């Protein structure tokens, strides 16, 4: 075993931002949303993440603005704490411990105990301490739904409405009384009546409930057991997933799987506005307190900010994670971004360096029908060629009882638009599912070749056809080259599984169950066959660089084999259950993920040496089936043997739960920490009319100040912004050293700074007298002494100036740049 003390597995790609309903702050400038174990603060105008409020140790389950102070927000988490944050500065203010797991905040907090969810009121004790334990819990409702959208406060907190299953429960706080309304299991037409979400009108006694069958019911008169009424609105064809009233109560917003935001006029429900094709199913709708912004979160990890139901103004998009990744993880050789399945029918390009989604490439180019249970085209395979000029994608649609529909598409990179443009579509390239696909790696060869293997027992080579050979008469029969089939190969009617090109593109290895066939792509000759029975080959991989004579394969029978292609014989083999084997394109290293007892171990080795370079047990739980080596932007220089394999490229992998993880070294982490501090974007001052007015006023003031205090203004501006000065000014006076001590130091530091201002000497002489008169006053104010001292310093410098040599001047200038470091040094001491 090799030591690996400083290599850690870390999460990448962010967490879900659509897990819970986002919150818009009162001034509509920020958007808070729960994201994994932290709360993220986004700017609604720039889409940037401003703060990441970290502190919870488990999944954050809800975020809420504090009603009494709209600059603070509560967050609750499954770790049993409620935390209070100042989200503008990103500071944790208070932590409250709750005895059990908090699932969602409403105004008070609902708490789950094991499987049964109950709503409890928590009286938050007033205390100055940061950590408070709240013990006063009083159960309000029991047996509520685990979905926080199904519990809501109504009309300024007079009552609370909660729906679970087929029952709606309304609890009035004043009367301490609960009313229950039930619906029948199924109505006549077979629609399901289960409640999905609840919303309360802000001013009116009206509760809107969404149902499984797409209906919205508006309940009125619900403070009577018998005489309650409801009216039904029906537009959605499947379950309503979110409902929200606008703050004035004039509109009701609803959304569901159709990905259409519907705006109903309250009391004129036949008037509706639609905002269609928002991209993916709507999971939550939030409205800003002033009603100007709507915000919808979608099932594809996206938050859309909509201005007054007409225009999408911003989209905050996280890494789209489906249930599974059909395509392998890939690296786009041009942008060095990670490429994998995104939205249905799309490929997403995710920048690993900036941790941000770059763009989605529409592969299928068909209208996506948002309806559950519909079989649509899915991107199942994709491959890049070595230079990033070509992208091959396979899309597939399997319908019950119908033939499999397959399309192979080849995309060329367009320099002008900087994106991929469809070049060739091959419909039905194979008769059955495509199992593997790879491009020839050779970058220098004239022709690009793609090989695809399929369950129909053939593998096909596709080649870019040369430019059309028509000359003279009709030059533009087909101006751009397109792809066509070059060769169809088969071996005993066995099903090919994996294919791999050698590093120089001179050999192609295709595995047919337990047999590996090696072909020459130049002549399409079967060169040799290698086999290691009894089980089928799972992975196939050529060595790189100095190890390019080796071909590695893993079999279903827990065997890792290494063949030497020069002798066509088995070099070595070892018994391990490798679920994934991949080669680093920039070095000889190979990574093997092994699945053992529900955990995955990682081994990094060179094919030429039987000893692993690095190994880590229990990297994550479950099987790792997707991983990729991403080249680094700049090489790391680590001399430690165990982390040398991370120098050129970084290993990313997807766990069973679709978390993107990577390995980092300690030095890298430190560097990252340092750089992240500079990345915070100051967006705290937005351009409001008030700001414009005030800002102008302030500028004028500054302008006006200048002629008055000409002495100080003509010299360097006051260093109020400096941290050291701030600290000096805020420290109580009795703690500071004596003024005379300070003064002498100060003067010394300033001796240098005024060598250039000889022409102001007379003015300064005059002003000095005035200031000497009011010496006592100056003592009281904090800023003036500096001026005065500066003047004195200037004088001193004036007298000293002629005596200084040029070298001295240069030296002094250098020291001058240090600015107020003298003060900082003083404070530290």
């Amino acid at each position, binding site marked *: 075993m090799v030591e690996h003390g400083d290599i850690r597995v870390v999460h990448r790609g962010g967490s879900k931002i659509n897990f819970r309903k986002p919150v818009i702050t009162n001034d509509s400038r920020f958007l808070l949303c729960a994201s994994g174990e932290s709360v993220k603060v986004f700017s609604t105008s720039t889409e940037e993440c401003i703060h990441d409020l970290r502190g919870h140790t488990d999944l954050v389950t809800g975020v809420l603005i504090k009603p009494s102070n709209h600059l603070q927000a509560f967050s609750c988490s499954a770790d049993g704490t409620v935390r209070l944050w100042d989200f503008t500065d990103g500071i944790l203010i208070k932590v409250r411990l709750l005895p059990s797991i908090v699932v969602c905040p409403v105004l008070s907090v609902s708490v789950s105990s094991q499987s049964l969810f109950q709503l409890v009121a928590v009286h938050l004790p007033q205390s100055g301490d940061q950590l408070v334990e709240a013990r006063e819990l009083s159960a309000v409702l029991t047996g509520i739904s685990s979905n926080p959208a199904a519990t809501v406060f109504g009309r300024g907190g007079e009552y609370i409405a909660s729906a679970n299953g087929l029952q709606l429960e309304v609890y009035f706080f004043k009367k301490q009384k609960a009313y229950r309304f039930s619906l029948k299991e199924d109505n006549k037409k077979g629609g399901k009546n289960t409640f999905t979400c609840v919303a309360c009108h802000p001013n009116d006694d009206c509760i809107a409930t969404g149902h499984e069958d797409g209906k919205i019911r508006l309940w009125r008169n619900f403070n009577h057991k018998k005489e309650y009424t409801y009216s039904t609105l029906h537009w959605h064809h499947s379950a309503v997933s979110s409902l929200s009233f606008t703050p004035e109560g004039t509109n009701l917003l609803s959304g569901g799987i159709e990905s259409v935001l519907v705006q109903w006029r309250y009391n004129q429900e036949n008037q509706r506005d639609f*905002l*269609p*094709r*928002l*991209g993916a199913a709507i999971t939550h709708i939030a409205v800003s307190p002033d009603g100007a912004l709507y915000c919808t979160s979608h099932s594809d990890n996206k938050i859309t900010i909509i201005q007054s139901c007409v225009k*999408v103004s911003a989209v905050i998009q996280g890494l789209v994670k489906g249930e599974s990744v059909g395509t392998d993880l890939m690296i786009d050789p041009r942008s060095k971004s990670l490429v994998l399945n995104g939205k249905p029918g799309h490929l997403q390009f995710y920048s690993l360096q900036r941790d941000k989604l770059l763009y989605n490439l529409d592969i299928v*180019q*068909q*209208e996506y*029908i948002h*309806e559950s*249970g*519909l*079989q*649509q*085209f899915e991107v199942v395979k994709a491959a890049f060629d070595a230079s990033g000029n070509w992208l091959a994608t396979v899309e597939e*649609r399997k*319908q019950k009882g*119908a*033939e499999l529909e397959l399309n192979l598409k080849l995309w060329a990179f367009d320099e002008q638009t900087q994106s991929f443009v469809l070049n060739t579509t091959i*419909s039905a390239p194979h008769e059955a599912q495509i199992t593997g696909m790879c491009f020839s790696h050779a970058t220098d060869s004239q022709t690009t070749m793609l090989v695809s293997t399929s369950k129909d027992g*053939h593998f*096909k080579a596709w080649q870019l056809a040369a430019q059309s050979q*028509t000359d003279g*008469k*009709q030059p533009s*029969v087909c101006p751009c080259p397109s792809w066509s*089939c*070059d*060769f*169809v*190969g*088969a*071996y*005993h*009617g066995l099903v090919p599984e994996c294919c791999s090109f050698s590093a120089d593109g001179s050999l192609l290895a295709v595995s047919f169950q337990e*047999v590996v*066939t090696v072909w020459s792509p130049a002549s*399409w*000759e*079967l*060169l*040799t*066959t*290698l*086999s*290691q*029975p009894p089980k089928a080959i799972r992975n196939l991989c050529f060595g790189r660089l100095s190890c390019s004579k080796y071909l590695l394969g893993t079999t279903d029978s827990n065997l890792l084999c290494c*063949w030497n292609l020069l*002798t*066509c*014989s*088995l070099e070595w083999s070892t018994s391990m259950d490798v679920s994934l084997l991949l080669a680093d394109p920039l070095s000889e290293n190979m990574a093997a993920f092994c699945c053992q007892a529900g955990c995955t171990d990682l081994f990094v080795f060179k094919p030429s040496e039987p000893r692993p370079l690095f190994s880590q047990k229990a990297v994550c739980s479950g099987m790792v089936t997707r991983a990729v080596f991403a080249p680094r932007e700049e090489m790391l220089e680590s001399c430690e043997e165990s982390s040398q394999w991370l120098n050129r490229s970084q290993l990313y992998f997807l766990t069973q739960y679709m978390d993107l993880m990577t390995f980092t070294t300690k030095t890298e982490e430190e560097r990252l920490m340092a750089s992240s501090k500079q990345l915070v974007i100051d967006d705290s001052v937005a351009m409001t009319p008030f700001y414009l007015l005030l800002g102008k006023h302030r500028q004028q003031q500054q302008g006006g100040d200048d002629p008055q205090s000409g002495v100080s203004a003509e010299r360097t501006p006051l260093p109020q912004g400096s941290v050291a000065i701030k600290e000096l000014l805020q420290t109580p006076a009795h703690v500071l050293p004596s003024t005379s001590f300070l003064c002498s130091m100060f003067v010394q530091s300033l001796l240098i700074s005024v060598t250039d201002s000889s022409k102001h000497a007379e003015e300064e002489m005059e002003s000095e007298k005035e200031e000497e008169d009011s010496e006592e006053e100056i003592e009281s104010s904090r800023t003036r002494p500096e001026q005065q001292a500066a003047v004195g310093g200037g004088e001193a410098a004036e007298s000293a100036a002629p005596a200084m040599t040029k070298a001295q001047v240069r030296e002094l200038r250098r020291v001058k740049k240090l600015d107020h470091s003298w003060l900082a040094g003083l404070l530290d001491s």
Partner: protein
Amino acid sequence: MASFKPTKIQVYPKLGEKVTQDTLYWKNYKAPVQIKEFGAVTHIDFSPVAPHNFAVTAFTRVCWHLFVHIYGPFSQEPVKTFTRFKDTAYSGRFRSDGQLLVAGCEDSVVRLFDVGGKVALRMFRGHTKAVHVTDFTSDRYQILTGSDDYTCRLWDIPNSTELNTYQEHTDYIRCGVTSKLNRDLFITGSYDHTLKLFDARVDRSVMTMDHGQPVESLLLYPSEGLLVSAGGRYVKVWDLLKGGQPLVSLKNHHKTVTSLCLSTNGQRLLSASLDRHVKVYNTTNYKVVHNFDYAASILSLALAPDDESIVVGMTNSILSIKHRKSPEESKEISGQQRRRPSYRVFVKGKNYVPKQDDYLVSKPVKQHLAKYDKQLKKFNVSKALDTALETWTRHRKPEITVAVIKELDRRGTLNNALAGRDEQGLSQLLNFLIGNLVDPRFAPVLVTAAEMILDIYHSVIGQSPVVDRQLLRLQELLEREIDYQQDLLEVLGMLDTMFASALPRKEVPCSGASRSNGLAQGEASTSRAQLQAT
């Protein structure tokens, strides 16, 4: 808010001919000029000297057309007509200087005309039956004739006497050609399936070749090393220098080949047949490179020098003349096509680049959708299908209809769209299915649609005679198609066995580590796969 993505119409590869240099060359002819003659046009011959007039032998006359291509295509009037025939005339041919013309006749008399005169200069009597073959020898003073009395004769023009008689054929002589390089050699083809090369110096045939079919036409290459004969459905090429060895046998027509012709540069061979086609072969590999279709069975074919025009005579007594387009004309036409959509209207203002001080008011780009897409956008599935089934679309662009059906199927609403149709709507649908179901490009989509239609409407079968008839037709069509498929599979199986036995087996180099568990057959399967790829 993303915009609506319109239905993708699959672009299918155009079936039929590929565009090659040859098609471009041979398509570059104007619309044919058609001239009604008095009977079936049996022979056409171009004068070897400019202006290249051509003689057309039809029924009882030999017309003589002036061919001047600068004039419009409709100025094709016969320059001269020889009508001094008692019966059907045959084989009017020019002498190599273009001054004399000879023609045979059903009444066994061969007549020689001066191009300027009207009365026959000489009459050669001696044959006992119709003379179908006449030609001048290369020294210009002798005439070769071939007749239905199984003989061919040589005549002297100045004395109008018979020089020699060759009685070697055992059936009608219907074609013959004299050598252009040697005054003594000539070749005749007969209905006794043979071709005979005669040498006037030795009084008998020097070479005999068996064509295997009654020979209808003969052609000598300019180098005279190769001879082309046409008879039955075959066109055969013989190598005379190798003693009449057959070189190629072409069978591209499905009826008797009647006429042969060589393009001016000798690169292309043309054959005309009773099956109404003229085929153009490449003379290096003898592959068909182009094909002309005509309205009736073709009896005669000629190509003007420099391929300036193609003249074809047909059994329905129509002479069809195609002139080559002049380069200006062909350019002009393409220029017109380009000008037709007034390009400037479309780009008006679109290429305007805003200046620095301009305030840009952006207008939302309106998306133009096809009718069916508009309906699909509104989820009006039945209406979308109705629009896609409109008569024009259905007939001219069936791929649009199929694409809409496919899109509906993808949306899971094809059932709804197909249901609830009246008799007229259903018969329209069935008509479309009958027309396109067996098209391999559309079959996968339409089969599911057809199954759905049968499921939906099986309860109303028997209520409408129109629909019942169409269903029966559909059934018939499917049965026939299944038979075809079965046949094809059988053929495929036969081919597989043939290839497997024909290809030599090669040993695959096996590594020491791998076990040779029947790996040797790998090569055979590879070569088969290659065949599939081509």
